[in-house]
Each structure stands twice: as structure tokens, then as C-alpha cells.
């Protein structure tokens, strides 16, 4: 480390001596990047900082998703600046409490935090706003508006965008393009086989392709892999399905709650319909599919067991790994929608000729600096270095890192087709899918309000009870609504409303 430090120092001195124009880009190639992109966060800028003798504490997700890039850039940051960076990796399920306990007890435990942005309603008071200097960097300015919104609380940007996530549909192109299957499907159902535009179509297709060997490898294959394990990420899967029925673009003022009264809407017909469909969907899950965590979903679709899947990129990335048996046999598209959407004002189903398919901006990883941190300067430098153009470019190419497009520059088709090696078909479609979601005027955001976990865990419990047949969908969601109401009252109606207003503002494009 010392040697590198000396070397960079020497390089800088020489560069200065030569009028500061000597390109030092090649010095940084050893870090695995293509080329250093000049700017406040670049390798060159960082190598001029001296943080020797200072220590940065970082909490992040388990490796590899987010965890591995954190390690990688921590090490680079260490070498460039002389700082010591300590990183701890925590599985997603335990991350919240591990951050919240120190926050609430006033312990200055971590300088930098990587976590799911859905928690910003709980964390924002404990986070340091991103200083202007970093807001003005080219990298930050290029972040798409959608994900600037995600990083912002009220009018203040409190989270540093290092990733963006969304849920979308993944399917097997080899099956959808197979003429024989197309014919059979038409005969059986009377419909043309096409990428589903509604959940009803999804249902029909998944059911048709369930339980027989459509891949020709001698094993039975199944319709759909979904995240259904109760306290795993099932709440996001349910929101994926429910948005189509419950998020009416013509009705403003909240999808989960009526912003005016703060009455829960979770037991309105839109959600109930989605839950009924979810319960029915069990028939085309693979064995064990009603207890799948995200990891199981990834293995199931990514390993070629199932025809379709939705939620995050991971399953798609797994399928496109160079060693994958189904590489180039997968396609992506925005989530299915619905022709019928509940209107809570008229208390009727509105008909949409073009299916209503809201784009659920499914939280995603974000990062922030703790307000209590005594190393805020160094912490923000680390995050800006972490996400500098060269690093982002590098990280996007490594699927397991879990870093997905969040800057306008990332939506360059040639990048995915050529550099990533996905080819034009898969790559272009991927970019189109992501762009459609990003540019959608009909977004659903997470319930980013204080106590989001309480709301999500009671919703997941209700959904799970209905899936297990312990309650009817209506009964289950009625109970969830009751619990939500109590939770709102306990946390404070005004407090929750104020926070939810932020979310609704984003959803209503105000």
C-alpha cells in the first residue's frame, strides 16, 4: 500500500511538473477499469487525497450483490488515499436492525451505509444530506430523474445513488418462439402465444407450460418462479402483481392509503383480485414454489426450470452467465398489466383497452453517510469514488455485483450488446425494457414511510395466510387493513401522512 502511495505521489508530482497535463489514466488500468474518466470522483482526483491514519467504517450487503463491489472499491480507495476502510457484510434480512440499533441508541457505528432504499422513511433523520459539491458532479447529474427521486427525501437528497432496481418480466424466448408450441398453445387456448401483457395472459401461459418437458432435457419444467417465502422479499412480488389492478393512473392520492384520510386501501378489490390470482398461481409453481425465497427464484428461472419469472435482475443475469445452459434464450419485458383496474373513487372497475401496467420502482440498493459520522468528507469521497464513471462502467459488466443501470449513460445499447456480450437481441430488448420502466408516467414506489417494515411484514403475513389457505384473500387483507390502521395510529397519522405525501407526489408525477 505504501509503495503504491509513493508511486502515485511521484506520478502526481511529475504530472504537476509537466504542467498537469500528463495523462495518468494508464496508471489506474491495474484496477481493472477501461480508463479513468476525469472528474471530482475519478481515480486521479482520489489519488491526490491523503486520508492516511483515518478509518472508515462501512456496512453493506452480503457478498457478492453490493457486497463485492463495496469490498473492491474499499480496497482501491484504501490504496489511493491511504485511508483504512473496514467493511462488514450483512444478509438482507438482518441489515435493517443492524443499522437501526446504533441509529436509535446514538452510537456512531458506521460512516457509510449500503441498504435498501425502501427504508429511507425510517433512516432519513439519521443521514447526512449529500453536499452540493457532490450533487454537482457529472456522475450525479446524469442519474435518471426516477432514481434521483428515490434518493431524495422531501427536497433533500440524503442518499447517494449507486444502483437502481426495478422488477420486470423474464421469459424463455426459445419457448415463446417455438412454432410447434405456438400451434399447440393456439389449439388448446384459442390465443396466440405471445409475451404476456396482462396477468391473466401470464396465468394462461404459465399454466399451459406447467409440468411437462418443454425444454427437451428429460425433466419436467414449470410455469413460473415467484418469491413467496413470507419474510423474504415476498412483499415486493405481491406489489408487482397488485399494482396492475390497484394503481389506477386516473386516481390520484395514493395506492396503499388514501392520502386524505389515511385509510388503508390494501383490502380494496384491486389488491384482493391480485391476491386471488397469486393464490391461484400456486398451481403452476415448481415443487416447493410456494416457499421460494429470492435465491430459489433465481436458481429456478436462471437454472432453466421455469418458463417465466419477475422481480429483480438477478435471475436474468444468472441466465445470461457465460456458463449458463439457457444463455441467449431469455428475454425481458415490463411487468404484465390488467385491462380492469379498480377505481376507489367511483368504486367500480375501470376498463383500459391498453393494459394498465404500472412500473414498480422496486426500491433497490442505495447508500448514505451517517449524520453522526465524524468522517463525512471521507465518506462522501468514498461514495463518489465508488460510483465514478469508470467504476460504474466496470461494475455494470459483472452480473453478480447486482449494480444495474441508473445513469442515462448506462442505457447505451451498444454497451450491453457488445461490451457485455449479450448480443443485439437480448441486449437491445433489455435496454428497451429498462427505459420503458424508467420513463413510465405511471410509477409505483415503495411505501417509504416510517415503519415500512411493519406494514410490509403484516402484508406479507396476510398474503402468506391466504396462500396457505388459512384465510380467504378478502379476509386476509381485511385483517391486514385493520393492522395497518392500528400501525398508522400508533406511529402517528400526521407523521405517516407527511411521509406518504412524498411518495404520492412521485407517483402522481407532481
Amino acid at each position, binding site marked *: 500500500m505504501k509503495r503504491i502511495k509513493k508511486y502515485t505521489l511521484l506520478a502526481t508530482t511529475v504530472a504537476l511538473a509537466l504542467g498537469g497535463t500528463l495523462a495518468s489514466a494508464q496508471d489506474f488500468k491495474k484496477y481493472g477499469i477501461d480508463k479513468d474518466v476525469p472528474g471530482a470522483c475519478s481515480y486521479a482526483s482520489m489519488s491526490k487525497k491523503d486520508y492516511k491514519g483515518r478509518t472508515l467504517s462501512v456496512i453493506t450487503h452480503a457478498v457478492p450483490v453490493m457486497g463485492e463491489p463495496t469490498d473492491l472499491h474499499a480496497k482501491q480507495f484504501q490504496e489511493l488515499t491511504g485511508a483504512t476502510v473496514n467493511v462488514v457484510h450483512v444478509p438482507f434480512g438482518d441489515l435493517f436492525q443492524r443499522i437501526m440499533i446504533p441509529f436509535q441508541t446514538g452510537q456512531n457505528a458506521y460512516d457509510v451505509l449500503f441498504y435498501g432504499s425502501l427504508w429511507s422513511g425510517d433512516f432519513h433523520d439519521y443521514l447526512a444530506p449529500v453536499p452540493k459539491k457532490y450533487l454537482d458532479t457529472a456522475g450525479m447529474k446524469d442519474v435518471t430523474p426516477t432514481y434521483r427521486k428515490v434518493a431524495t427525501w422531501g427536497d433533500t437528497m440524503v442518499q447517494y445513488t449507486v444502483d437502481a432496481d426495478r422488477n420486470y418480466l423474464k421469459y424463455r424466448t426459445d419457448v415463446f418462439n417455438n412454432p410447434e408450441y405456438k400451434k399447440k398453445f393456439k389449439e388448446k387456448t384459442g390465443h396466440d402465444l405471445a409475451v404476456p401483457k396482462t396477468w391473466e395472459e401470464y396465468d394462461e401461459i404459465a399454466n399451459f407450460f406447467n409440468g411437462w418437458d418443454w425444454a427437451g432435457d428429460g425433466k419436467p419444467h414449470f410455469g413460473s418462479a415467484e418469491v413467496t417465502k413470507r*419474510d423474504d422479499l415476498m412483499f415486493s412480488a405481491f406489489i408487482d402483481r397488485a399494482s396492475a389492478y390497484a394503481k389506477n393512473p386516473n386516481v390520484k392520492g395514493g395506492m396503499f392509503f388514501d392520502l386524505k384520510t389515511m385509510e388503508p386501501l390494501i383490502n380494496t378489490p384491486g389488491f384482493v383480485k391480485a391476491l386471488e390470482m397469486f393464490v391461484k398461481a400456486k398451481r403452476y409453481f415448481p*415443487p416447493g414454489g*410456494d*416457499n421460494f425465497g429470492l435465491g*430459489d427464484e433465481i436458481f429456478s428461472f436462471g437454472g432453466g426450470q421455469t418458463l417465466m419469472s419477475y422481480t429483480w435482475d438477478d435471475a436474468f443475469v444468472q441466465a445470461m452467465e457465460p456458463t449458463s445452459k439457457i444463455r441467449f434464450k431469455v428475454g425481458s419485458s415490463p411487468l404484465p398489466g390488467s385491462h380492469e383496474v379498480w377505481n376507489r373513487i367511483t368504486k367500480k372497475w375501470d376498463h383500459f383497452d391498453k393494459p394498465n401496467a404500472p412500473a414498480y420502482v422496486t426500491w433497490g440498493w442505495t447508500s448514505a453517510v451517517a449524520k453522526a459520522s465524524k468522517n463525512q468528507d471521507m465518506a462522501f469521497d468514498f461514495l463518489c469514488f465508488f460510483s465514478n464513471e469508470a467504476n460504474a462502467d466496470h461494475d455494470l459488466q459483472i452480473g453478480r455485483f447486482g449494480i444495474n443501470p441508473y445513469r442515462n449513460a448506462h442505457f447505451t445499447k451498444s454497451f450491453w450488446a457488445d461490451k457485455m456480450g449479450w448480443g443485439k437481441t437480448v441486449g437491445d430488448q433489455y435496454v428497451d425494457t429498462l427505459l420503458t420502466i424508467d420513463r413510465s408516467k405511471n410509477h409505483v414506489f415503495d411505501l417509504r414511510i416510517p415503519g415500512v417494515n*411493519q406494514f410490509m411484514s403484516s402484508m406479507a*403475513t396476510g398474503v*402468506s395466510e391466504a396462500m396457505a389457505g*388459512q384465510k380467504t384473500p378478502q379476509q386476509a387483507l381485511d385483517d391486514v387493513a385493520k393492522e395497518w390502521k392500528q400501525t398508522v395510529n400508533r*406511529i402517528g397519522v400526521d407523521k405517516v401522512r407527511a411521509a406518504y405525501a412524498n411518495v404520492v407526489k412521485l407517483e402522481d408525477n407532481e
Partner: protein
Amino acid sequence: MSADRSKFVFVLPGLIVLVAIILFPLLFTIRVSFSDWDVARPGLDWIGATNYLRLVHDTRFWESFGRLALMAVGSVLLQYMLGFGLALLVWREVRARRFFRVLFLIPMMTTPVIMAVIWRTMFHESLGPVNDLVRLLHFAPLPWLSQAGLAMMSIITVEVWQWTPFMFLMLLAGLLSLPREPFLAAAIDGAGPIRTFLRVTFPMMAPISIGAIIIRLIEASKILDSVYVITSGGPGTATETSSYYIFIRGLRDFQVGYAAALSFTYLVIMAISLTIIAKVLARAMLVRDRA
């Protein structure tokens, strides 16, 4: 130093250290249970017994007790019977008994949170070996984790695998330290193996059995890691136990005050029921000993 004074020298150091470490957390928990400490409101305000009134109506909490009772009592009984059986098997005249003794101890040495992941992969309904074995025996694959009864059985299986060694060790140590004379006497009386067991072995093992059962019940009641990893309480709430429910409320939801009330209630209920269980067991098992 008189015997009367010196007895305190034995007990007090441990007692003082333990109280010093545990007193604050315990009192603090009780205090927190009367507060509204929540994810959005850290700190110790005073809301009286509100949390306790809430938990009275919390059916999920009380239902979880029923499941806990089934899971804890079921798995501990199985562990006891299997552990005793195994201890008897490798007690005497067995080839390579030292090897088997070590082998039987090993599951206890594994980290529950990691082994639970391994077990989940084993029970995986399409990618795991358990259903492979089921298929080999020409049965249809079973929904090990997604059907209420089977999910409960799967978790009990994991618990039995992990903690039978504990019983085994306690009981084997007990068996190995038994004096020989009563067995010789029984042999002279012409008692067969079953009578010897009922008249001699079992009564002599009763005290150690009761201790082992109680301590296992305490530990089994705290079951958390395996539930979390294997089913996360599902399907529905079919495998949700008290401590898992408290975990969800306390650390997932971060309802710190309410979780403290739940825990304190749990502590009281467990202390009372364990005392009763211990008394009942003592009466049932020690009766011959006293006579």
C-alpha cells in the same frame, strides 16, 4: 473460615457476576415494555400497560405459543427417547463404540444458523436430496416446506438432528458413571434386560434426565434460526413460534416496546410452566427413588 461463611465464597462470585451482567438488561426490558419505543420513536416514554393490553388481544402471539408447545415438547421428547436409546446402544459391548460415540455427538457442534441453510437445501423440493430419496422409494415428491404439517415435521427433524446429541451426551455420561452394584444385584435376581432397565437403569437416570429435559425445553423454546431460515414462519403462520414472532415484532418491525412486553410475558409464562413441568417430571420419574 467456618463452613457457614465459606459457602458464600463458593456461590457469591458466580452469582454476583451473573447478576451484574444480567440485571441491567432484565430491568431495562421490563422498563421498555411500558414504553412506546418504536421504529419512529426511540426512547423511554411511559405509556403504562398499553403494550400488555395489546398483547392480550394479539391472537398471533397466543397461537404461536400453541405451536411452540407442540414443537418444543415434541422435539424434546423425541430427542430424549432417541438420545436415551442411542446412549444405551453404545454404552457397552459395541464394536467401534468410541467412533460411534464421537459421531453421534457431532451434530450438536454445528452452528444452527448455518446448518439450517444446509437443511433447507436438503428439503428443497426439486433440487434437494430428500425428495430424491422419496422418489427412489417410489413415492410422489412431498411438499416438505410448503405444507403446514410437513413444514412442522421438517423443522422438528432438524431440531432432532441437531440436539439429540445433547441428550445422548448427558445420558451417556450418566450411564457411564452409574455404579455397578445394582446391576450385579439385578443380574443375581435373574432380571432380564427390560426389567433391569425399568427397575435399575431408568430410576437411577431420573435426576439427570429431568435436568436434561428441562434445559432442552428452555433451549428449544427459543428456536429461531431454523424457523427463520427454513420456513420463515410459513406457510401462512403454520410454523411461527413465540420467539420467532417476538423476533419479527422486535427487530424486523422494530416495535421495541411491544416486543419487550411480549418477551417479558413469555419469560413469566415459561418460568411458571417450566417449574410445573419440572415438578411433574420429578414426581413421575423420581417416585421409586424416594420410596
